[in-house]
């Protein structure tokens, strides 16, 4: 004869579960939060449920001048309409002297052809608001409207990009794997060729001098329009030689042919 067989097991199980549940809730919501001093019963229960009113450590703060204030809009991340691209092309006539007729620079200004639209848009806004400074660009963006900047971004994004034919596996270690102990992330995990990150530009084929100047500016903190110091953090611990090597790599200059300037 089974001892269990004589009992209404379902009811017994239900009662057990309810009792365990009551104990668990009582301890978790009333007893344990009691370790927090000066809280009423109701406050303890709310606290244990995740209510955050009791914390109140929110300190205000506003970005200092010189830091970026851009929040990337969704409209900067989609493909541009033909109308936007056309309008952007007209506006871009003012940019050709430095950035080239097809967005490929002959000077040491960045190539813009095929660049991600949100990248161009963000830099334009930063120039306009003073988070990034450059004598030429500052003057040029002053008159641009929000719509102008979006259209320009979509126009340049539409132009064909210079593709790199270098396999990633042949890139310098900092590009592929970074350096964990210096918290230098692999460049390729944000700047294309392996993985992308919203707001991070494609770098292949950019002029060597431009890249070196910008990396150095991030490293010294003279350029700080990278949100949350994302680039300054990556570059801060790099040596000058490493910065030089990265600039050469992305410019497409092989180490053996280092003397050959871009293009």
């Amino acid at each position, binding site marked *: 004869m089974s001892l*269990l067989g004589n009992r209404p097991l379902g009811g017994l199980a239900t009662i057990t579960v309810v009792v365990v549940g009551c104990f668990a809730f009582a301890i978790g919501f009333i007893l344990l939060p009691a370790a927090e001093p000066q809280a009423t019963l109701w406050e303890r229960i709310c606290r244990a449920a995740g209510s955050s009113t009791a914390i109140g450590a929110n300190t205000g703060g506003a970005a200092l001048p010189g830091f970026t204030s851009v929040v990337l809009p969704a409209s900067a991340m989609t493909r541009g309409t033909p109308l936007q691209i056309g309008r952007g092309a007209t506006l871009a006539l003012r940019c050709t002297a430095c950035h080239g007729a097809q967005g490929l620079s002959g000077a040491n200004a960045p190539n813009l052809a095929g660049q991600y639209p949100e990248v161009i848009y963000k830099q334009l806004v930063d120039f306009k608001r003073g988070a990034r400074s450059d004598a030429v660009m500052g003057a040029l963006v002053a008159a641009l409207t929000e719509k102008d900047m979006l259209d320009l971004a979509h126009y340049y994004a539409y132009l064909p990009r210079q593709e790199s034919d270098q396999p990633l596996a042949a890139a310098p270690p900092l590009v592929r794997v970074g350096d964990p102990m210096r918290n230098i992330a692999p460049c390729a995990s944000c700047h294309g060729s392996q993985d992308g990150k919203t707001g991070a530009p494609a770098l292949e084929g950019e002029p060597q001098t431009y890249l070196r100047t910008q990396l150095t500016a991030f490293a010294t903190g003279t350029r700080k329009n990278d949100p949350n110091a994302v680039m300054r953090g990556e570059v801060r611990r790099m040596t000058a030689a490493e910065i030089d090597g990265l600039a050469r790599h992305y410019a497409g200059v092989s180490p053996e042919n280092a003397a050959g300037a871009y293009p």
Partner: protein
Amino acid sequence: MIKARGLILAHFWTAFVLFFAALWLGEWQMLIRSPLHAWISIPEHYYRSVTAHGTVMAYVFPLLVAMGFGYAISELSLKQPLIGIRWAWAAYALVAAGALMAAGAVASGAASVLYTFYPPLIGSPFYYIGVVLVVVGSWMWVALMAVNLHRWRKTNPGKIVPLPMYANVAGAYLWAWTAVGAALEILLQILPVALGFKTTIDAGLARVLFSWTLHAIVYFWLMPAYIAFYVIVPRAIGGRLYSDVMARLSFALFLVFAMPIGIHHLFADPQVGSGFKYVHSVFTGMVVIPTLLTVFTICASVEIAARLRGGKGILGWVRALPWRNPAMLGLAFSFVMLGFGGAGGLINMSYQLDSTVHNTQWITGHFHLIFAGAVVIMYFVLAYDLWPHLTGRPLGQLDLIRAQLWLWLIGMLVMTIPWHLAGLLGMPRRMAYFDYSNPAIAPQAWTVTAAVIGGAMLVGSGALFIFILFRSYFGPRLSLSEYRFSAPVHVTAVPKALNGFAVWVALMIALTIANYGVPIAQLMFAKTNVPAVFYFNR
């Protein structure tokens, strides 16, 4: 002879071949992150491999084993041909197609988001759709198990459901409800973003929904192993099941307590209040009880076998156990790994104690011990046990089988115990490479080398397993007697509640709502959607 053996063999072979492939991936991952190898030149390949390894090992492999085993149990224990065999093949096709689709997406490098998904990272929609197809196929299996049991009840009114089928259907219902959490996450949150209908997603809510699935799935993995403990091992070693009723109660308790505990994976998360964390900790404690009941019942069952063989004394009987019997070896090895893994598990679920080990290599060690160790070794045993009844041919010499099981045990211990230590030293999970030249990391280097060695043993054991199964096809035809499950010492009256599932399923759903309702509702109304981060090569 089993009628649906073609179906069952299709499930088993697909499961084991995928398992063997994923085993190689695991070993490759260990090798390239170890000090024996230079840093991987393209880290994305590592995460691609981890995603594939996890997707196969956590979803496809155990599902196919449970499904195949479930069909076999349905036929063998109910002694009726499988109803709905066409549907069963359709379910198999869905699982296989889903697995292929997911594998394609992962292999192409468009979905290296790991099998735990991790929104707001978003990979290729084909990956998620593949996983959904796998789950839908598995739900068809759940329905088939219910239908077969229902038919049996109609033709056998008033009779007690055989224990193997009772446990099997408990496992099926457990899975049906377990999968709901991840299904909600994929269907309502991830897919709309992956398909481009939305650009934002609530990462916290996604983690809560996934935790619903993430822990209960472990008990679903365990089910075939526990079924084998109760209904295969005692018979295979010439013993008797100590108590049929307690076996049923254990399975019923798993059904009740497996779900409302998943937030113990989120102790370190900011989107759940500490009260719910404690409640889930308590209920995780409750789910320990059916495992302890199982350990005792199985020990008593094998003790009967030992004493029937002349075993004497309080501990002396252990020596009289049939240690050369693979079922006995498998059980003992499984219990050893369950013990170590269980101790680690108790630590993980202990509210504050989790912070010492959360997301370190310790956790990887823990679930490999429990699943890849204690559970998978029983998958081997149940496959060996059923194999001659599926192929009609013998497995051949048992020496190879014993060697295979020994290799699996030793490989698993050599791999996972150093992982636990590495976790205590602060080694984080999921890193493609480590800078072993750093003095703070250098002491952890040997643990990864040990994992490479242990992993090599596991690959060897997996290869032996496949070889043993394959070789049996070249054996002579057997005329086998009827397949039997373990018999209990005494056939006792079974409480009505333990002949059905109504109470347990009701408690399972009620407890899930009680323990998950508020945490989910809180986040559904919080304004915490964040932009998705698309994982695609742009």
